[in-house]
Protein backbone atom coordinates (compact mmCIF):
# COMPACT_ATOMS: atom_id res chain seq x y z
CA UNK A 1 0.00 0.00 0.00
CA UNK A 2 2.76 2.45 0.80
CA UNK A 3 4.35 1.58 -2.49
CA UNK A 4 4.81 5.23 -3.35
CA UNK A 5 7.24 6.23 -0.63
CA UNK A 6 9.18 9.40 -1.13
CA UNK A 7 8.79 10.73 -4.60
CA UNK A 8 12.18 12.29 -5.25
CA UNK A 9 10.84 15.58 -6.62
CA UNK A 10 8.76 16.15 -3.48
CA UNK A 11 11.78 15.53 -1.28
CA UNK A 12 13.93 17.86 -3.39
CA UNK A 13 11.53 20.75 -3.00
CA UNK A 14 11.05 20.02 0.69
CA UNK A 15 14.79 20.13 1.26
CA UNK A 16 15.01 23.51 -0.35
CA UNK A 17 12.20 25.06 1.66
CA UNK A 18 12.71 23.38 5.00
CA UNK A 19 12.82 26.79 6.63
CA UNK A 20 9.35 27.47 5.27
CA UNK A 21 7.86 24.87 7.60
CA UNK A 22 6.59 25.69 11.03
CA UNK A 23 8.81 23.08 12.62
CA UNK A 24 9.21 19.30 12.17
CA UNK A 25 5.57 18.49 12.97
CA UNK A 26 4.48 20.75 10.15
CA UNK A 27 6.77 18.91 7.73
CA UNK A 28 5.52 15.55 8.97
CA UNK A 29 1.94 16.61 8.41
CA UNK A 30 2.79 17.75 4.91
CA UNK A 31 4.48 14.40 4.20
CA UNK A 32 1.53 12.51 5.64
CA UNK A 33 -0.81 14.40 3.35
CA UNK A 34 1.53 13.42 0.53
CA UNK A 35 0.50 9.83 1.17
CA UNK A 36 -2.94 10.88 0.00
CA UNK A 37 -4.64 8.84 2.67
CA UNK A 38 -6.70 9.94 5.59
CA UNK A 39 -4.63 10.47 8.64
CA UNK A 40 -5.98 7.48 10.50
CA UNK A 41 -4.51 5.14 7.89
CA UNK A 42 -1.13 6.64 7.10
CA UNK A 43 1.93 4.48 7.34
CA UNK A 44 4.00 5.91 10.14
CA UNK A 45 6.98 3.88 8.97
CA UNK A 46 6.83 5.36 5.48
CA UNK A 47 6.40 8.78 7.03
CA UNK A 48 9.47 8.30 9.23
CA UNK A 49 11.55 7.22 6.25
CA UNK A 50 10.45 10.24 4.26
CA UNK A 51 11.33 12.58 7.07
CA UNK A 52 14.75 11.05 7.53
CA UNK A 53 15.34 11.27 3.78
CA UNK A 54 14.43 14.96 3.78
CA UNK A 55 16.75 15.69 6.69
CA UNK A 56 19.54 13.68 5.07
CA UNK A 57 19.04 15.61 1.84
CA UNK A 58 19.08 18.90 3.67
CA UNK A 59 22.30 18.00 5.46
CA UNK A 60 23.95 17.24 2.17
CA UNK A 61 23.05 20.71 0.92
CA UNK A 62 24.17 22.52 4.04
CA UNK A 63 25.55 21.19 7.26
CA UNK A 64 23.82 23.32 9.81
CA UNK A 65 20.21 22.43 10.62
CA UNK A 66 18.09 23.72 13.43
CA UNK A 67 18.28 21.59 16.56
CA UNK A 68 14.60 20.70 16.63
CA UNK A 69 14.81 19.15 13.16
CA UNK A 70 17.64 16.93 14.34
CA UNK A 71 15.99 16.06 17.65
CA UNK A 72 12.91 14.96 15.73
CA UNK A 73 15.12 13.00 13.29
CA UNK A 74 16.82 11.19 16.17
CA UNK A 75 13.49 10.37 17.78
CA UNK A 76 12.08 9.14 14.47
CA UNK A 77 15.16 6.99 13.87
CA UNK A 78 14.50 5.39 17.25
CA UNK A 79 10.84 4.95 16.33
CA UNK A 80 11.81 3.35 13.02
CA UNK A 81 14.07 0.85 14.77
CA UNK A 82 11.19 -0.13 17.05
CA UNK A 83 8.67 -0.41 14.25
CA UNK A 84 10.99 -2.76 12.35
CA UNK A 85 11.17 -5.19 15.25
CA UNK A 86 9.01 -8.30 15.10
CA UNK A 87 5.61 -7.65 16.64
CA UNK A 88 4.98 -8.91 20.15
CA UNK A 89 8.26 -7.83 21.72
CA UNK A 90 8.24 -5.17 24.38
CA UNK A 91 10.29 -2.81 22.22
CA UNK A 92 7.91 -3.22 19.31
CA UNK A 93 4.98 -2.38 21.57
CA UNK A 94 6.72 0.78 22.72
CA UNK A 95 7.18 1.62 19.06
CA UNK A 96 3.51 1.02 18.29
CA UNK A 97 2.53 3.27 21.16
CA UNK A 98 4.87 6.04 20.05
CA UNK A 99 3.57 5.72 16.50
CA UNK A 100 0.01 6.11 17.77
CA UNK A 101 0.98 9.18 19.75
CA UNK A 102 2.59 10.69 16.69
CA UNK A 103 -0.46 9.90 14.57
CA UNK A 104 -2.69 11.51 17.20
CA UNK A 105 -0.54 14.62 17.27
CA UNK A 106 -0.66 14.87 13.52
CA UNK A 107 -4.42 14.41 13.57
CA UNK A 108 -4.76 17.17 16.17
CA UNK A 109 -2.61 19.55 14.17
CA UNK A 110 -4.61 18.66 11.09
CA UNK A 111 -7.87 19.38 12.93
CA UNK A 112 -6.61 22.74 14.13
CA UNK A 113 -5.49 23.59 10.59
CA UNK A 114 -8.99 22.77 9.43
CA UNK A 115 -10.50 24.90 12.22
CA UNK A 116 -8.23 27.76 11.25
CA UNK A 117 -9.29 27.41 7.61
CA UNK A 118 -12.94 27.28 8.67
CA UNK A 119 -12.52 30.50 10.64
CA UNK A 120 -10.62 32.17 7.83
CA UNK A 121 -13.41 31.32 5.40
CA UNK A 122 -16.04 33.09 7.50
CA UNK A 123 -17.09 36.62 6.63
CA UNK A 124 -14.92 38.53 9.04
CA UNK A 125 -15.91 41.78 10.67
CA UNK A 126 -13.78 44.54 9.19
CA UNK A 127 -12.83 42.35 6.23
CA UNK A 128 -15.97 41.11 4.50
CA UNK A 129 -18.69 42.61 6.64
CA UNK A 130 -18.69 45.99 8.30
CA UNK A 131 -20.42 47.26 11.38
CA UNK A 132 -21.61 50.82 11.75
CA UNK A 133 -18.50 52.92 11.68
CA UNK A 134 -20.02 56.04 13.20
CA UNK A 135 -21.98 54.71 16.17
CA UNK A 136 -24.15 57.09 18.13
CA UNK A 137 -23.80 57.26 21.86
CA UNK A 138 -26.83 58.23 23.87
CA UNK A 139 -25.31 57.85 27.28
CA UNK A 140 -24.80 60.90 29.40
CA UNK A 141 -22.21 61.01 32.12
CA UNK A 142 -23.44 62.45 35.38
CA UNK A 143 -20.56 63.35 37.65
CA UNK A 144 -22.55 65.39 40.12
CA UNK A 145 -22.58 62.78 42.84
CA UNK A 146 -19.71 62.37 45.24
CA UNK A 147 -18.14 59.09 46.07
CA UNK A 148 -17.42 59.15 49.77
CA UNK A 149 -16.56 56.42 52.18
CA UNK A 150 -15.41 56.24 55.76
CA UNK A 151 -12.05 54.53 55.08
CA UNK A 152 -11.09 57.40 52.77
CA UNK A 153 -12.14 59.87 55.43
CA UNK A 154 -9.99 58.15 58.04
CA UNK A 155 -7.04 57.92 55.68
CA UNK A 156 -7.34 61.62 55.00
CA UNK A 157 -7.49 62.39 58.71
CA UNK A 158 -4.42 60.34 59.49
CA UNK A 159 -2.59 61.87 56.53
CA UNK A 160 -3.35 65.35 57.85
CA UNK A 161 -2.18 64.48 61.33
CA UNK A 162 0.95 62.82 60.03
CA UNK A 163 1.86 65.83 58.00
CA UNK A 164 1.63 68.16 60.97
CA UNK A 165 3.12 65.47 63.20
CA UNK A 166 6.55 67.06 62.94
CA UNK A 167 5.42 70.04 64.96
CA UNK A 168 2.70 68.55 67.09
CA UNK A 169 3.50 65.04 68.01
CA UNK A 170 0.69 63.07 69.56
CA UNK A 171 1.22 62.09 73.18
CA UNK A 172 -1.13 59.78 75.00
CA UNK A 173 -2.75 61.43 77.98
CA UNK A 174 -0.97 60.58 81.27
CA UNK A 175 -2.80 57.95 83.26
CA UNK A 176 -4.66 59.45 86.21
CA UNK A 177 -5.35 56.22 88.02
CA UNK A 178 -4.30 55.86 91.68
CA UNK A 179 -1.17 53.68 91.88
CA UNK A 180 0.07 51.40 94.68
CA UNK A 181 2.87 53.90 95.33
CA UNK A 182 0.26 56.65 95.78
CA UNK A 183 -1.74 54.42 98.12
CA UNK A 184 1.33 53.51 100.22
CA UNK A 185 2.16 57.19 100.64
CA UNK A 186 -1.41 58.09 101.58
CA UNK A 187 -1.85 55.17 103.99
CA UNK A 188 1.45 55.97 105.68
CA UNK A 189 0.47 59.59 106.13
CA UNK A 190 -3.06 58.91 107.40
CA UNK A 191 -2.56 55.92 109.73
CA UNK A 192 -0.83 57.85 112.50
CA UNK A 193 -3.91 60.00 113.14
CA UNK A 194 -6.42 57.13 113.03
CA UNK A 195 -5.67 54.65 115.80
CA UNK A 196 -8.87 52.55 115.52
CA UNK A 197 -10.18 50.06 112.91
CA UNK A 198 -11.26 51.78 109.75
CA UNK A 199 -12.62 50.44 106.50
CA UNK A 200 -10.42 50.44 103.42
CA UNK A 201 -12.68 53.03 101.75
CA UNK A 202 -11.75 55.57 104.39
CA UNK A 203 -8.30 55.82 102.94
CA UNK A 204 -9.35 56.50 99.36
CA UNK A 205 -8.55 59.91 97.96
CA UNK A 206 -11.44 62.33 97.47
CA UNK A 207 -12.71 63.58 94.11
CA UNK A 208 -12.80 60.20 92.38
CA UNK A 209 -15.65 60.83 90.02
CA UNK A 210 -15.43 57.88 87.67
CA UNK A 211 -16.14 54.29 88.79
CA UNK A 212 -12.98 53.11 87.04
CA UNK A 213 -10.84 55.54 89.03
CA UNK A 214 -12.59 54.50 92.21
CA UNK A 215 -12.04 50.79 91.65
CA UNK A 216 -8.40 51.36 90.70
CA UNK A 217 -7.82 53.35 93.88
CA UNK A 218 -9.55 50.69 96.00
CA UNK A 219 -7.40 47.87 94.63
CA UNK A 220 -4.26 49.99 94.94
CA UNK A 221 -5.07 50.75 98.56
CA UNK A 222 -5.76 47.06 99.28
CA UNK A 223 -2.41 46.09 97.79
CA UNK A 224 -0.70 48.84 99.78
CA UNK A 225 -2.46 47.59 102.94
CA UNK A 226 -1.30 44.01 102.33
CA UNK A 227 2.22 45.25 101.74
CA UNK A 228 2.24 47.26 105.00
CA UNK A 229 0.66 44.39 106.97
CA UNK A 230 3.40 42.10 105.75
CA UNK A 231 5.95 44.58 107.03
CA UNK A 232 4.12 44.67 110.36
CA UNK A 233 3.12 48.31 110.17
CA UNK A 234 -0.64 47.64 110.23
CA UNK A 235 -3.21 45.01 111.03
CA UNK A 236 -5.85 43.84 108.55
CA UNK A 237 -9.20 42.21 109.28
CA UNK A 238 -12.19 40.94 107.32
CA UNK A 239 -15.19 39.64 109.35
CA UNK A 240 -17.05 37.81 106.55
CA UNK A 241 -16.22 36.89 102.95
CA UNK A 242 -16.80 39.95 100.77
CA UNK A 243 -17.35 41.96 103.94
CA UNK A 244 -15.67 45.30 104.53
CA UNK A 245 -11.93 45.15 104.95
CA UNK A 246 -10.75 46.91 108.12
CA UNK A 247 -7.31 48.13 109.01
CA UNK A 248 -5.56 49.96 111.84
CA UNK A 249 -1.98 50.74 112.87
CA UNK A 250 -0.27 47.70 114.37
CA UNK A 251 -0.58 47.61 118.14
CA UNK A 252 2.60 46.58 119.92
CA UNK A 253 2.29 43.33 121.95
CA UNK A 254 -1.02 42.38 120.41
CA UNK A 255 0.37 39.98 117.82
CA UNK A 256 -2.82 38.02 117.14
CA UNK A 257 -5.99 39.92 116.74
Amino acid at each position, binding site marked *: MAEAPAEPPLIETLVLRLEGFEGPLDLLLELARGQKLDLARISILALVEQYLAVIEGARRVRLELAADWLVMAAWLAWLKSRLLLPAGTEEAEAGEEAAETLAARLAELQAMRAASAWLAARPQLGQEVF*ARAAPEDF*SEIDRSRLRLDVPALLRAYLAALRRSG*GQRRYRPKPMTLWSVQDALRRLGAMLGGLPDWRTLETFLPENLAEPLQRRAALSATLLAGLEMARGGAIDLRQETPFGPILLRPAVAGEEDA
Partner: protein
Amino acid sequence: MNEDTPETPAPVSEAALRLAEAFVFASSEPVSLRALGQVLPEDCDAELVVAALAARYAGRGVELVEVAGGVRFQTAPDLAPLLRRVIEVPRRLPRVAMETLAIIAYHQPVTRPEIEEIRGASLSQATMDALLEASLIAPRGHKEAPGRPTLWGTTAAFLAQFGLKDLADLPRRADLLVEVPAPGGA
Protein backbone atom coordinates in the same frame (compact mmCIF):
# COMPACT_ATOMS: atom_id res chain seq x y z
CA MET B 1 -31.24 61.62 -17.70
CA ASN B 2 -34.04 61.68 -15.19
CA GLU B 3 -33.16 64.95 -13.45
CA ASP B 4 -36.79 65.93 -13.20
CA THR B 5 -38.21 63.04 -11.27
CA PRO B 6 -40.21 64.72 -8.52
CA GLU B 7 -42.13 62.64 -5.96
CA THR B 8 -42.18 59.34 -7.78
CA PRO B 9 -39.43 57.07 -6.45
CA ALA B 10 -36.42 57.42 -8.66
CA PRO B 11 -35.80 54.50 -10.98
CA VAL B 12 -32.79 53.31 -9.12
CA SER B 13 -31.64 49.71 -9.24
CA GLU B 14 -31.91 47.71 -6.04
CA ALA B 15 -28.22 46.80 -6.42
CA ALA B 16 -27.18 50.45 -6.39
CA LEU B 17 -29.44 51.11 -3.43
CA ARG B 18 -27.95 48.22 -1.46
CA LEU B 19 -24.43 49.35 -2.18
CA ALA B 20 -25.11 52.94 -1.19
CA GLU B 21 -26.85 51.80 1.97
CA ALA B 22 -23.90 49.61 2.99
CA PHE B 23 -21.33 52.26 2.12
CA VAL B 24 -22.98 55.03 4.12
CA PHE B 25 -23.56 52.62 7.01
CA ALA B 26 -19.96 51.39 7.13
CA SER B 27 -18.32 54.76 6.63
CA SER B 28 -16.96 56.63 9.63
CA GLU B 29 -17.38 59.98 7.87
CA PRO B 30 -20.34 61.41 5.95
CA VAL B 31 -20.25 60.07 2.41
CA SER B 32 -20.04 62.65 -0.35
CA LEU B 33 -21.82 62.23 -3.65
CA ARG B 34 -18.43 62.05 -5.31
CA ALA B 35 -17.22 59.21 -3.10
CA LEU B 36 -20.49 57.41 -3.63
CA GLY B 37 -20.18 57.85 -7.37
CA GLN B 38 -16.85 56.04 -7.28
CA VAL B 39 -18.39 52.77 -6.10
CA LEU B 40 -21.63 52.97 -8.04
CA PRO B 41 -21.83 51.68 -11.58
CA GLU B 42 -20.90 54.24 -14.23
CA ASP B 43 -24.40 54.88 -15.45
CA CYS B 44 -25.75 55.50 -11.98
CA ASP B 45 -26.59 58.98 -10.71
CA ALA B 46 -25.40 59.23 -7.10
CA GLU B 47 -27.86 61.99 -6.37
CA LEU B 48 -30.79 59.87 -7.44
CA VAL B 49 -29.54 56.94 -5.38
CA VAL B 50 -29.26 59.11 -2.30
CA ALA B 51 -32.74 60.47 -2.82
CA ALA B 52 -34.14 56.96 -3.18
CA LEU B 53 -32.28 55.79 -0.08
CA ALA B 54 -33.54 58.77 1.91
CA ALA B 55 -37.07 57.98 0.78
CA ARG B 56 -36.71 54.39 1.87
CA TYR B 57 -35.60 55.40 5.36
CA ALA B 58 -38.10 58.23 5.77
CA GLY B 59 -40.16 57.79 8.92
CA ARG B 60 -38.06 54.89 10.14
CA GLY B 61 -36.05 54.65 13.34
CA VAL B 62 -32.95 55.68 11.45
CA GLU B 63 -32.91 58.37 8.79
CA LEU B 64 -30.55 59.41 6.07
CA VAL B 65 -29.58 63.02 6.70
CA GLU B 66 -27.53 65.47 4.73
CA VAL B 67 -24.68 67.06 6.65
CA ALA B 68 -21.60 69.02 5.73
CA GLY B 69 -19.59 66.89 3.38
CA GLY B 70 -22.25 64.36 2.49
CA VAL B 71 -24.89 62.05 3.91
CA ARG B 72 -24.96 59.80 6.93
CA PHE B 73 -27.42 57.73 8.90
CA GLN B 74 -28.75 59.21 12.10
CA THR B 75 -31.27 58.19 14.74
CA ALA B 76 -34.69 59.76 14.17
CA PRO B 77 -34.83 62.90 16.34
CA ASP B 78 -38.01 61.79 18.14
CA LEU B 79 -36.34 58.55 19.32
CA ALA B 80 -33.10 59.99 20.66
CA PRO B 81 -34.62 61.06 24.00
CA LEU B 82 -36.03 57.55 24.50
CA LEU B 83 -32.61 56.03 24.05
CA ARG B 84 -30.83 58.48 26.33
CA ARG B 85 -29.33 56.87 29.36
CA VAL B 86 -27.66 58.62 32.23
CA ILE B 87 -24.56 56.97 33.58
CA GLU B 88 -23.63 58.09 37.04
CA VAL B 89 -19.93 58.39 37.60
CA PRO B 90 -19.52 59.68 41.13
CA ARG B 91 -16.39 61.73 41.63
CA ARG B 92 -14.01 61.72 44.56
CA LEU B 93 -13.31 64.72 46.73
CA PRO B 94 -9.87 66.21 46.23
CA ARG B 95 -7.36 65.16 48.88
CA VAL B 96 -7.23 68.54 50.62
CA ALA B 97 -11.02 68.70 50.85
CA MET B 98 -11.16 65.17 52.28
CA GLU B 99 -8.55 66.01 54.91
CA THR B 100 -10.37 69.19 55.85
CA LEU B 101 -13.65 67.34 56.10
CA ALA B 102 -12.07 64.69 58.31
CA ILE B 103 -10.64 67.32 60.65
CA ILE B 104 -13.98 69.10 60.90
CA ALA B 105 -15.67 65.75 61.60
CA TYR B 106 -13.32 64.93 64.45
CA HIS B 107 -12.80 68.38 65.94
CA GLN B 108 -16.16 70.07 65.45
CA PRO B 109 -17.06 72.72 66.21
CA VAL B 110 -13.80 74.05 64.88
CA THR B 111 -12.59 77.30 63.36
CA ARG B 112 -10.72 77.66 60.15
CA PRO B 113 -7.46 78.71 61.85
CA GLU B 114 -7.74 75.62 64.04
CA ILE B 115 -8.14 73.41 60.98
CA GLU B 116 -5.10 75.03 59.45
CA GLU B 117 -3.13 74.38 62.59
CA ILE B 118 -4.11 70.72 62.69
CA ARG B 119 -3.35 70.19 59.01
CA GLY B 120 -0.15 72.19 59.30
CA ALA B 121 -1.02 73.98 56.07
CA SER B 122 -3.20 76.88 55.04
CA LEU B 123 -6.66 76.25 53.68
CA SER B 124 -7.96 77.73 50.44
CA GLN B 125 -11.40 79.26 50.19
CA ALA B 126 -12.06 76.95 47.24
CA THR B 127 -11.76 73.92 49.48
CA MET B 128 -14.23 75.32 52.01
CA ASP B 129 -16.56 76.28 49.14
CA ALA B 130 -16.44 72.76 47.72
CA LEU B 131 -17.44 71.28 51.08
CA LEU B 132 -20.16 73.88 51.59
CA GLU B 133 -21.53 73.35 48.10
CA ALA B 134 -21.78 69.61 48.70
CA SER B 135 -23.60 70.44 51.97
CA LEU B 136 -21.09 68.38 53.91
CA ILE B 137 -20.30 71.16 56.39
CA ALA B 138 -22.23 74.09 57.85
CA PRO B 139 -21.46 77.01 60.17
CA ARG B 140 -22.14 76.33 63.84
CA GLY B 141 -22.08 79.83 65.34
CA HIS B 142 -19.03 81.80 66.37
CA LYS B 143 -16.22 81.18 68.78
CA GLU B 144 -16.07 83.68 71.64
CA ALA B 145 -12.58 84.77 70.78
CA PRO B 146 -11.02 87.82 69.18
CA GLY B 147 -12.53 88.27 65.71
CA ARG B 148 -15.35 85.82 66.60
CA PRO B 149 -14.30 83.27 63.95
CA THR B 150 -16.98 81.02 62.49
CA LEU B 151 -17.20 77.53 63.93
CA TRP B 152 -17.71 74.67 61.48
CA GLY B 153 -19.34 71.32 61.86
CA THR B 154 -20.57 68.45 59.71
CA THR B 155 -24.16 68.13 58.51
CA ALA B 156 -26.85 65.48 58.23
CA ALA B 157 -25.87 65.20 54.55
CA PHE B 158 -22.38 64.31 55.69
CA LEU B 159 -23.74 61.39 57.73
CA ALA B 160 -25.95 60.26 54.85
CA GLN B 161 -23.15 60.40 52.29
CA PHE B 162 -20.84 58.34 54.46
CA GLY B 163 -23.56 55.96 55.52
CA LEU B 164 -23.26 56.84 59.19
CA LYS B 165 -26.11 56.82 61.70
CA ASP B 166 -24.43 59.47 63.79
CA LEU B 167 -21.00 60.84 64.49
CA ALA B 168 -20.39 58.23 67.18
CA ASP B 169 -20.27 55.70 64.35
CA LEU B 170 -16.86 57.03 63.41
CA PRO B 171 -13.96 55.24 65.08
CA ARG B 172 -12.88 57.11 68.19
CA ARG B 173 -9.87 59.32 67.76
CA ALA B 174 -7.93 57.35 70.34
CA ASP B 175 -8.48 54.12 68.40
CA LEU B 176 -7.21 55.72 65.25
CA LEU B 177 -4.22 57.42 66.68
CA VAL B 178 -2.68 54.36 68.25
CA GLU B 179 -1.85 53.37 64.74
CA VAL B 180 -0.20 56.62 63.76
CA PRO B 181 3.51 55.97 63.45
CA ALA B 182 4.91 58.73 65.60
CA PRO B 183 7.18 60.71 63.31
CA GLY B 184 10.58 61.04 64.89
CA GLY B 185 9.75 58.31 67.41
CA ALA B 186 8.34 58.76 70.90
